[in-house]
């Protein structure tokens, strides 16, 4: 017995401290208990009500199927609507600037905090799943659905929950103004709603077709691909959440940039294999689209990063002159971040075009996708460089907090304003390009080839001017990106 206690104690010590605290609080939380009891009551009510009140409960051949769809919908909405919001809101409240939770001043690492929160969210999901299992299995006895379908649907649902829980924790780790947090929360709610709708549609299809659907090879390759992307997305959300929780003076963008570069490569290789097997450029087009959106967002975010480096980061800057340019791209830093995004995006386009030449399949679609992606990325690159020039060269004495949020807002405004003007002036149908539309990537939506053709040269000129005027800012950062001199190691008064 002593050994058992000792073993239990050792296991207890190994569990993430944040997870232990969160479990304890969840178990004692009235809110969690209420949701859990309500969930059980709904399950009991639906199954009990059907068995006692439905006249054809004993004879119907698809009673189990209908009950399963109802129970699965309740289960999924409970898991997707409650757990990520619970985890996200708790973390967000603990990150409140004016009353930050004191465990952020312990020696616990940001990674352990995120893992602890995620582990708790997954345990809560598992708890809800385990509670509904008996009801789900009972539907098999009510006919109309087979056991493999039940388990497969539950497993897929659980995987989806794993993704949305990571999303909730990432959203909760965003600090800053309530406006920013509110925007993130709204974005998350839209994402959760879309996920729920898509999942319920997929479940309905799976149940109608039954286990036969899971006997098809393409179903498993599709599920496998989705799971791979989900795992990569969970990993990305994890490294981003850890970066957001890390202290500001740390080199917090290093791991996300390395991870994104690795993910970009893995997805590119998977897309190439898939494209080769299908003799179609569609997977590569998908890779180009995802890369464009991803690197554009990362570029806007990079703009808000640091322009100089703290002592702790300087200690890790390589002294080797060959390695230092790579470090400049991957370390936290605004100019390095923008150049890193631009290099990876350019590599994506070059790889896609060369792959298209090799494959010789739906080349025109691939070329159109690449040219549109280049225009979209080019517009945002010009916005970023122009913002950098105005905010960091012209107005460098004015401290602008959250520059990336400002840049994102200005970019969205710049995208939409000309389009709205064109809409109100009824210029959208014109065959010639209204001059004010050329400042926005929305020009691509005009179905006006002359406009699109004019956008390229315009962007090129804008890019050259913006790059030249923002050059002092980028060069200044490169000059400051030097390892710490040994004489500076001791603090001085």
């Amino acid at each position: 017995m002593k050994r058992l206690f000792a073993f239990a104690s050792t296991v207890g010590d190994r569990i993430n401290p944040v997870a232990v605290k969160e479990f304890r609080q969840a178990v004692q939380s009235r809110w969690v208990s209420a949701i859990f009891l309500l969930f059980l009551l709904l399950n009991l009510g639906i199954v009990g009500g059907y068995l006692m009140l439905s006249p054809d409960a004993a004879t119907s051949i698809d009673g189990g199927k209908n009950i399963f769809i109802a129970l699965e919908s309740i289960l999924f909405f409970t898991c997707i609507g409650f757990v990520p919001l619970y985890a996200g809101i708790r973390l967000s409240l603990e990150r409140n600037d004016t009353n930050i939770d004191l465990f952020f001043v312990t020696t616990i690492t940001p990674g352990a905090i995120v893992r602890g929160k995620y582990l708790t969210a997954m345990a809560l999901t598992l708890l809800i799943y385990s509670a509904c299992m008996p009801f789900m299995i009972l539907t098999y006895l009510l006919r109309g659905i087979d056991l493999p379908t039940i388990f497969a649907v539950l497993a897929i649902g659980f995987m989806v929950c794993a993704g949305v829980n990571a999303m909730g924790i990432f959203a909760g780790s965003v600090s800053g103004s309530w406006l920013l947090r509110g925007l993130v929360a709204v974005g998350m709610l839209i994402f959760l709603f879309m996920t729920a709708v898509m999942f319920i549609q997929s479940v309905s299809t799976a149940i109608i077709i039954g286990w036969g659907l899971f006997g098809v090879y393409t179903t498993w390759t599709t599920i496998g691909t989705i799971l791979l992307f989900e795992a990569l997305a969970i990993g990305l959300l994890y490294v981003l959440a850890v970066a957001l929780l890390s202290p500001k003076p740390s080199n917090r963008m290093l791991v996300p940039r390395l991870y994104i570069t690795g993910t970009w490569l893995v997805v590119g290789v998977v897309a190439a294999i898939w494209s080769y097997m299908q003799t179609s450029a569609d997977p590569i087009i998908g890779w180009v689209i995802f890369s464009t959106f991803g690197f554009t967002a990362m570029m806007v975010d990079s703009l808000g990063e640091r322009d100089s480096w703290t002592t702790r980061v300087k200690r890790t800057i390589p002294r080797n002159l060959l390695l230092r340019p790579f470090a400049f791209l991957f370390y936290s830093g605004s100019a390095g971040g923008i150049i890193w995004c631009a290099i990876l995006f350019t590599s994506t386009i070059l790889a896609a075009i060369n792959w298209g030449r090799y494959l010789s399949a739906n080349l025109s679609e691939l070329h159109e996708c690449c040219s549109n992606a280049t225009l979209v990325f080019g517009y945002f690159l010009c916005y970023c460089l122009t913002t950098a020039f105005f905010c960091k060269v012209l107005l460098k004495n004015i401290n602008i907090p959250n520059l990336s949020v400002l840049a994102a807002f200005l970019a969205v405004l710049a995208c939409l304003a000309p389009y709205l003007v064109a809409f109100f002036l009824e210029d959208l149908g014109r065959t010639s390009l209204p001059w004010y539309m050329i400042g926005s990537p929305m020009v691509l939506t005009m179905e006006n080839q002359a406009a699109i053709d004019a956008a390229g040269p315009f962007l090129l000129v804008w890019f050259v001017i913006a790059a030249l005027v923002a050059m002092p800012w980028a060069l200044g950062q490169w000059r400051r990106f030097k390892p710490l001199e040994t004489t500076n190691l001791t603090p001085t008064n």
Partner: protein
Amino acid sequence: MDVRIVNLKRYFGKTRAVDDISFEFSSGNVFGFVGPNGAGKTTAMRILATLDDPTEGNAYVDGISLIDDPEKARRHVGFMPDALPAHRDITVHEYLDFFARAYGLRGVKRRSVVDSVEQFTNLKGIREKFLYALSKGMKQRVSLARALVHDPPVLILDEPAAGLDPRARIELRELLRVLADRGKAILISSHILTELAEVCNGAVIIEQGKILRAGSMEQIVAAESPHRVIVIRASNGADSLHKELLQVPLVQEARIIGEEVEIRVDGGEDSHSDILTHLVGKGFRILDFRQRQMDLEDVFMTVTKGEVQ
């Protein structure tokens, strides 16, 4: 173990909450951090607790920068905020156990540390109570216990006596003395200056983000009172005593306070007997003759203006 704050600045827009402050304190000392409301005490303490980043400047604990290496420095610093963050659904023991785990304490050591901290802060009897159900005084005890759980050599205590009853305040004072005797470097802010003066070896007086005075208690008091202050009461009445005292060359200043006369005199302790002899010689019947020590409260009232930004 020494703590050095070097040219620390924290601006919120145009408001200079902390404006270029520098001071230091070390092991075994209790250092008071005094200032009117809105002086920047809590902001500075939050920076020292690594909860906030300064606009400029740095702070070092045993040479480790709190700004550049917060993770490393946190092992050496225990912070007690002015209010315990709201936690529902967790008991006192679970709360302390969590922080012990978060600081990397494992197994038997963790349990014994939590036990001894509960014992030291007199929380044994309420360890199974939920945090939200505790009184203000009990919450302050839990907060202090939490700050002590990893046995940090430096303690930053923000208004630990706020809202405590007299008994709890005395107990807290005793705890602080014990902690200082154990070699902790303690920075404590409080509005109860008389109590602070009893427990502190040194103090920093801050207003509008700027340091007005800093040093040991003796240095601060001496800086504000270069003259000795003597209070005299005589049966002949305050007016005639006041008139006579103004004739004595040693007396720099004299003022009537009720039935007494307060004078400021030059010179050492010999001046006391000179003045006394002079008064007796002039026929005054002296009922009370005492030197008044200037305390932290007097200094505070003298140097601060009570202005906020």
